[in-house]
């Protein structure tokens, strides 16, 4: 005897729904499913599935300066942007979450605006502003541009983390005599560790993958990996891009896995 009652009508709908869903999942994963095998293909053909397998494309990627230099530039920019955005965004997010001040709605609106403003607009604005400051085409301008771009996401994540904390802990610490900075470092920061780590990871990945703002801000000496890839795709589609794509996907995958694991992780049981 079956445990559940069979309803052939409902079952037919379920099977149809499952089939459609599988098709959409396949469509979503298609880019990854195509690029990864190709990355292990041969160096002279863009065919799928590859006729022979090798690590040649990765060897080209990791040995040619025209790809390696953008890779290091991207790492440098992403690390710098993550550092600056955390140093600014964490205290700012805490302050916005916990305090009322004059013009709060306006100020948070301005800080959050890069989320809704089309990225091209932000990119052009940063380009014009940095031209005015005469720091265009420098690594600094890229770092600052990425900070402006990632800041709202970091602040939102920190605010969400702070809202989950018990306000009495902070007030209690203050009553017991702790100053603001001491309280922040000993009470707020330790409890926020999961939010801090995921915000930093997210900021790093956003910056590392960012194309549009970098497209406006890079000079010939500060080309980032995504910009290098974008201009490569604009002109010729070479097989080595499959290896670069696989590398970018692997970075995303690592960040994705860490972020999912972090959700289950709490500072208390660690």
């Amino acid at each position, binding site marked *: 005897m079956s445990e559940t009652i069979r309803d052939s009508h409902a079952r037919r709908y379920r099977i149809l729904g499952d089939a459609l869903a599988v098709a959409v999942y396949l469509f979503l994963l298609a880019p990854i499913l195509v690029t990864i095998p190709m990355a292990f293909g041969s160096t002279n053909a863009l065919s799928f599935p590859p006729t022979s397998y090798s690590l040649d494309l990765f060897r080209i990627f990791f040995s040619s300066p025209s790809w390696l230099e953008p890779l290091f530039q991207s790492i440098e920019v992403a690390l710098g942007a993550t550092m600056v955005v955390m140093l600014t965004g964490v205290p700012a997010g805490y302050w916005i979450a916990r305090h009322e001040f004059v013009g709060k709605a306006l100020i948070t609106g301005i800080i959050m605006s890069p989320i809704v403003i089309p990225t091209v607009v932000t990119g052009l604005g940063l380009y014009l502003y940095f031209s005015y400051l005469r720091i265009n085409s420098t690594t600094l301008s890229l770092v600052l541009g990425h900070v402006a771009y990632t800041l709202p996401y970091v602040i939102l994540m920190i605010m969400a983390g702070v809202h989950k904390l018990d306000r009495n*802990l902070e*007030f*209690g*610490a203050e*009553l*017991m*005599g702790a100053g603001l900075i001491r309280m922040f470092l000993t009470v707020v920061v330790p409890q926020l560790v999961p939010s801090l780590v995921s915000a930093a990871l997210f900021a790093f990945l956003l910056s590392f993958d960012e194309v549009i703002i970098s497209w406006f801000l890079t000079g010939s000496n500060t080309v980032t990996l995504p910009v290098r890839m974008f201009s490569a795709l604009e002109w010729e589609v070479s097989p080595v891009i499959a290896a670069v794509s696989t590398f970018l996907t692997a970075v995303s995958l690592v960040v994705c896995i860490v972020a999912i694991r972090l959700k289950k992780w709490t*500072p*208390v*049981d660690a």
Partner: protein
Amino acid sequence: MSDDPVLGSRIAHTIALKGISKMFGSVTALHATDLSVEKGEFLTLLGPSGSGKTTLLNLIAGAIGPTTGAILLDGRDITTMPPRERGIGMVFQNYALMPHMTVFENVAYPLRVRREPAKTIQVKVTAALDRVGLRGFGDRKPRQLSGGQQQRVGIARCIVYSPAIIMMDEPLGALDKNLREQMQGEIKRLHRELGTTVIYVTHDQEEALNMSDRICLMNGGQIAQLGTPDELYFRPRSRFVAEFIGESNLFSGRMNSDGRIVIAEAQLIAGPDNRWTEGTEVLVMVRPERVKIGHADGFAKGHTNVLNGEVTSTSFIGGMTRVTVKADNGLNISAKMVSGHAETRPELGARVRLCWSSSDVVVVGN
């Protein structure tokens, strides 16, 4: 005032509120209020939610600033002083322990903030944990403790730095009934031993009656009555107080020339009370447990305030049984009697006779 060899000598402090009030936008959370708490006193702020007791507590702690008025600690104005400089301790309803610190580190926190030497911290924290019966729990994380144990940590963290005033915001609110009563005893003992001035917030009247030197009963952002538990229970000064604390039969009547009060045409005798003149409308209270209940032909002559009636409901609530009687003169009166077996309780519809002594009639007000 009392001494502890480790936690140090406690000099009890006073706190006084002068015309303090608080508005949130256009809503008045607390009307202008005067209140002073004596040295070593255990004062309870009691009241329903929204009565202003938490606002009052937050004003004293410095979590919010007052709209008008001043707060004096030992006569010194601390109205605008930031919380960390006030030297006040607080025990929170949800414990507010740092989840990332051990019990020891939690209790040591206020001492570390004060840059006390490691040796002193070790000694004081151990003494404070001893006091609350948590010797040997120092290495645990708060989450590994029961609710009662967590609140003991909260109390230890508060007494360890000898704050001038200890405030407790419904500290037992999250505990179940038995544990709550046990903890009430422990907090009372600690207060007796340490002699610190305590301001305690609760909405549980039994807790307030049991623990307090004085109770400040709040309602609608104002003090409804301030006094000892006895005063609030036996001499309530308004309908709100009479109804909020304990159960009560409330009647409205009129003062007679000879000190009697006429209620619904029945002559009731109240104790001598010269506050009101003849003809004044007054509100009168009789506590149900002071109403004697007997057979319809019971009670010898000479009893005052005798009424006949019919039982309309009985409820068995443990040690006591509540009996509601509709008197022949139309009054609904509830009486409480010590519970016996089912057969000894009056049946529904039974004819009974009620009486109470004139000294149990309290004139609440007019």
